[in-house]
């Protein structure tokens, strides 16, 4: 190629690139516009938190963005605890939570409350940052214990056995350690990590204290990774939200749980009537008065509560009964005033 030809080619490429860049640049719109309701909504809503509640929020966000294309809704899943840290430092507008917000401050190393080294609760952290959380209950979940489908000997687990497996300092390594007669094969444990609300809830209800658990298992805040892990390992055992089991019934085997009243398999009915105990739990989304002051956030949550029961069914959780949905709506209305 001659010098002149390369020069022309470069100029052409450069021109084309600049043209594309200019076209791409004009597509992004500015921030939120507080105006009369006839104007289309725009702005952003940032949601993070529980991976258990994530499928519901993601489904609502998708539909909402189809109706309001100028509002950008992002939903992440760092775990309930991780999400609250972001929520209480104003990084996000809402937090998906598979457990209620923590309200009790814990004394630090000096054993005294009210001193500088206290472990502040999420409610305190939010208050310190000027955030007033608004609790919205959106669904019920039955925390499910699952094993690999090739596992033909585990038909039921009692809560005593679950505690023996998962508690801190547990010496259980093989199935035989759990129940006599089971094979002496090593159990491969999978579960949510320490930032997860599911982790907090399971450990509190099964081990007796939130966050008290053995540490030698494969942790992940991404429940899909847990599904894959258990599905690929014959000796896998793990726990996560019911929706993730429902979506993968061909890859996983559900384990009924016996809390003294017989083995109960989680299903829409047993979670609704509370017979799947103690692992039935409510799911929440927390937002704040400060964020609700923005029209796009308020519109999003109004849409959320209007449509949540239809999405919850699809996703695999248990929808709220009418009276509880009304109560949640009332909470939202009160916060909008």
């Amino acid at each position, binding site marked *: 190629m001659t010098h002149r030809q390369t020069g022309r080619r470069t100029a052409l490429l450069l021109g084309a690139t600049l043209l594309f860049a200019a076209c791409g640049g004009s597509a992004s719109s500015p921030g939120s516009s507080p105006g009369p309701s006839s104007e289309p909504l725009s702005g952003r809503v940032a949601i993070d938190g529980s991976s258990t509640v994530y499928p519901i929020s993601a489904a609502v966000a998708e539909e909402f963005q189809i109706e309001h294309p100028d509002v950008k809704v992002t939903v992440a899943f760092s775990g309930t605890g991780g*999400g609250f840290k972001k929520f209480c430092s104003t990084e996000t507008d809402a937090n998906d939570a598979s457990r209620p917000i923590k309200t009790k401050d814990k004394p630090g190393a000096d054993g005294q409350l009210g001193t500088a080294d206290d472990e502040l609760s999420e409610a305190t952290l939010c208050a310190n940052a000027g955030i007033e959380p608004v609790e919205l209950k959106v669904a019920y979940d039955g925390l499910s214990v699952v094993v690999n489908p090739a596992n033909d000997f585990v038909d039921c687990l009692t809560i005593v056995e679950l505690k023996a497996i998962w508690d801190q300092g547990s010496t259980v390594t093989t199935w035989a350690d759990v129940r006599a007669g089971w094979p002496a094969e090593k159990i*491969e444990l999978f579960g949510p990590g320490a930032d997860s609300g599911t982790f907090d809830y399971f450990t509190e209800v099964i081990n007796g204290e939130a966050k008290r658990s053995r540490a030698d298992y494969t942790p992940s*805040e991404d429940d899909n990774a847990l599904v894959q892990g258990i599905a690929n390992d014959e000796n896998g055992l793990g726990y996560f939200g019911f929706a993730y089991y429902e979506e993968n019934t061909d890859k996983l085997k559900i384990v009924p749980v016996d809390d003294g009243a017989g083995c109960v398999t989680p299903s829409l009915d047993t979670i609704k009537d509370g017979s799947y105990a103690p692992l039935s739990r409510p799911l929440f989304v927390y937002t704040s008065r400060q964020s609700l002051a923005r029209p796009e956030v308020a519109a999003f949550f109004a849409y959320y509560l209007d449509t949540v029961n239809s999405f919850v069914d699809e996703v695999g959780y248990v929808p709220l009964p009418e009276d509880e949905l009304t109560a949640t709506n009332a909470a939202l209305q009160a916060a909008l005033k």
Partner: protein
Amino acid sequence: MTTVSVPFTRRTPLRERLIEAFLFLSAAVGILTTVGIVAVLVFEAVEFFREIPLVDYLTGTVWSASIKPFRFGVLPLMTGTLLVAGIALLVAVPFGLVSGIYLAEYASPRIRMLLKPLLELIAGIPTVVLGFFAINFISPVLLKTLVPGIGGFSVLAGGIVVGILVTPLIASLSEDAMRAVPRGLREGAVAMGATKFEVVRRVVVPAALSGIMASIILAMSRAVGETMAVVLAVGANPQLTLDVRESVQTMTAFIVQISLGDTPAGSLQFKALFAVGATLFMMTLALNLLSDRVVARFRNRY
């Protein structure tokens, strides 16, 4: 190579001095970056060791960084890293060396022209793609049929995939080392009646030994620092075990886990990140220094 040295005198134009200063600063940026990285690692690691005694860190057998009670014994992570790197070398050294020997001694120029770029291609595959290959093919298809009792994540899967990653390195460097052996040595051996294989085995490889060993140590260094492929293939279970069918956590995987999570800056977990990073840095530094000494020791001057 001869250089013409032009001494700077008072008559050297300002432009020349400026150019030299600019080039020096550019080089200095690289050095300063390295110094900066080391300084940050050391500073934060020292902060960590104020709270966790160094002895507990180096000899503890339990690593529990996010779940209380927090324990920071680095042995499970270090064992994980070394196991994966060890298996990687077991895979890469035979394949790499044999490939290098073939390319250097036996391949015709046309075959070499075809084969060498193909080998380099493996080195060009993004490591995350190799990790993906491990989860989707090596673990479920290859290992499940060959090894009874293996799960979806294992040290073996990680070791194999890092071995594949590192083979081109050994092949390429060994080949260069062997081609640098003077023809006279080969011809002398042939003149004494040696077969081709005897020449390779008895003359060329021993002569190129320093380069070959350097390539192996470099490969080990690379395997120790490999992150993405290992995170995907080996899992994240920080247990101390020598069973290669188990899922473990390597030092690099731990760093990724904490970095991607929501660990607040200044917390103990955050500082643990730097302690592990500093340990990793020490390991690769030691390997690099060892490589230099080995090369110097085994080098034959012709």
